[in-house]
């Protein structure tokens, strides 16, 4: 394991300190909680998200005007605890309530649920939206359900915009619940992710192997295969994602190509080129795109492709609206 860090157990705290040193012009920390929150809180519903660390720039990179009010950082790849989340909720509430955006992992769901229960006991209005965009996992009673991955960032952006516009908590919640059914993601990896305290990758891939359907916590995916050209990866991912999204007779879509942490930007663009050429097969218009690192898996090499249904132009407007965050 080669990393520019000090002690493996100190990475989260030192990263957090670095962020606060760098961005104290508009962000602040809540002592002892690993919560990063915007300094200037508008009198609107506050969006709170978070999860394990290791997904940078998620989630702190999306805190600011027009997106999240606060991000809660857990240990590496481990959901934050209810009391951390509770502090974020309390500090984010301006009397208009708080919306939690939670990725669908057992740990995240339970910790955010407990925090929600605690906050309600303190008479704070709290609702939550569960994101489960990763179609690599079957959604059945035999699994914990589809995982929440890169598409979460689009939820932050769209709901963040409407919260900023003054939408009420209940409406944000309904909008969010509908939105998440229109976002689908699939990822591939060329290498596993190494949690500093573990010191070795979550899974090992040979010099000519790749893995389809990986999650963002170093989870292995649905198929191991020999390394394929970008064009073929684009074909497989686009095919699966489009067959999902076309069930709704979709006419307009948006695309998010997300690097998993150690992937050069040039590869994301090569891949995007192949995705666009694949999409010529479908009768859809691409009205939005975003290419870069948004929801990473520490130092994993690979990428994910997210397709979002944008037949409702209001979603596109929300995606395009300017924001005051670090990494959108």
């Amino acid at each position, binding site marked *: 394991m080669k990393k520019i860090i000090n002690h493996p157990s100190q990475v989260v705290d030192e990263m957090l300190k670095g962020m606060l040193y760098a961005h104290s012009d508009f962000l602040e920390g809540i002592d002892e909680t690993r919560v990063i929150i915007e300094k200037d809180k508008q009198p609107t519903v506050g969006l709170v998200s978070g999860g394990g660390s290791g997904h940078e720039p998620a989630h702190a990179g999306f805190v600011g005007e027009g997106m999240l009010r606060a991000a809660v950082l857990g240990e590496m790849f*481990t959901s934050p605890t209810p009391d951390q989340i509770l502090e974020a909720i309390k500090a984010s509430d301006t009397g208009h309530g708080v919306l939690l955006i939670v990725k669908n992992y057992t740990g995240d769901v*339970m910790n955010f*649920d*407990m925090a929600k229960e605690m906050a309600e006991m303190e008479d704070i209005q709290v609702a939550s939206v569960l994101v489960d965009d990763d179609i690599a996992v079957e959604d059945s009673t*035999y699994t914990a359900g589809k995982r929440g991955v890169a598409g979460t960032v689009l939820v932050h952006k769209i709901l963040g915009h409407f919260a900023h516009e003054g939408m009420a908590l209940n409406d944000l919640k309904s909008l969010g619940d509908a939105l998440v059914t229109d976002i689908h993601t699939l990822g591939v990896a060329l290498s596993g992710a190494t949690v500093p305290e573990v010191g070795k990758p979550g899974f090992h891939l040979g010099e000519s192997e790749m893995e389809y359907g990986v999650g963002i916590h170093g989870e292995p995916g649905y198929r191991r295969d020999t390394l394929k050209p970008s064009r073929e990866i684009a074909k497989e991912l686009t095919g699966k994602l489009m067959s999902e999204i076309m069930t709704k007779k979709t006419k307009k879509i948006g695309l998010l190509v997300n690097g998993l942490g150690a992937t050069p930007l040039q590869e994301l663009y090569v891949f995007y080129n192949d995705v666009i050429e694949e999409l010529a097969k479908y009768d859809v218009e691409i009205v939005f795109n975003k290419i870069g690192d948004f929801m990473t898996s520490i130092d994993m090499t690979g990428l994910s492709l997210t397709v979002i249904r944008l037949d409702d132009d209001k979603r596109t407007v929300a995606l395009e609206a300017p924001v005051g965050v670090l990494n959108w």
Partner: protein
Amino acid sequence: MELTGDKAKAWLLNFEAKIQEHKAYLSDLDQAIGDGDHGSNMARGTEAVKVNLEKIAEPETAEVLKQAAMALISKVGGASGPLYGSAFMQMAKTAKETTDIHELIEAGLEGIKHRGKADVGDKTMVDTWAPVVEALAKDALTNEAITQAVDATKPLKAKKGRASYVGERSIGALDPGAVSSGYLFTALVEEVLQ
């Protein structure tokens, strides 16, 4: 059998020692079918339990269990934090009415099931807790019974938690949460039942 405050404290300190000893093993088990952090999660949590308990001079059962719950909820995170935390919180609540060990552990199991929605056979810590509760009902909890329950998670296919993502590939591996729960009950046997 009754769980006195002193015994409760001894039980949880013993549990902490076992977790620290087997930390790497628990993470390795979790690496195989999850994300490899169960050992460090539980080590961080039981360490905090120990810190909380060492502050209590005259242990009282409900208070000991509540302090454990608080430490686990606020220090572990992940899936095991809320699950162990809910178990101990339910036990603490029940301890205000009874300190019967069988009833306490049964309340803990209810806490886990309520929080995690898992059933017996889903390859989770429930598969350790449920047989233990049954054995306690018959006053027959032994190390063998615990080991048997833990080992029985091996052939199961995971249906809950992170291990469910690997589907068929989870078959043949021990469930890390079932194993850490095994340590909890071995500690119970050593400190309270024997």
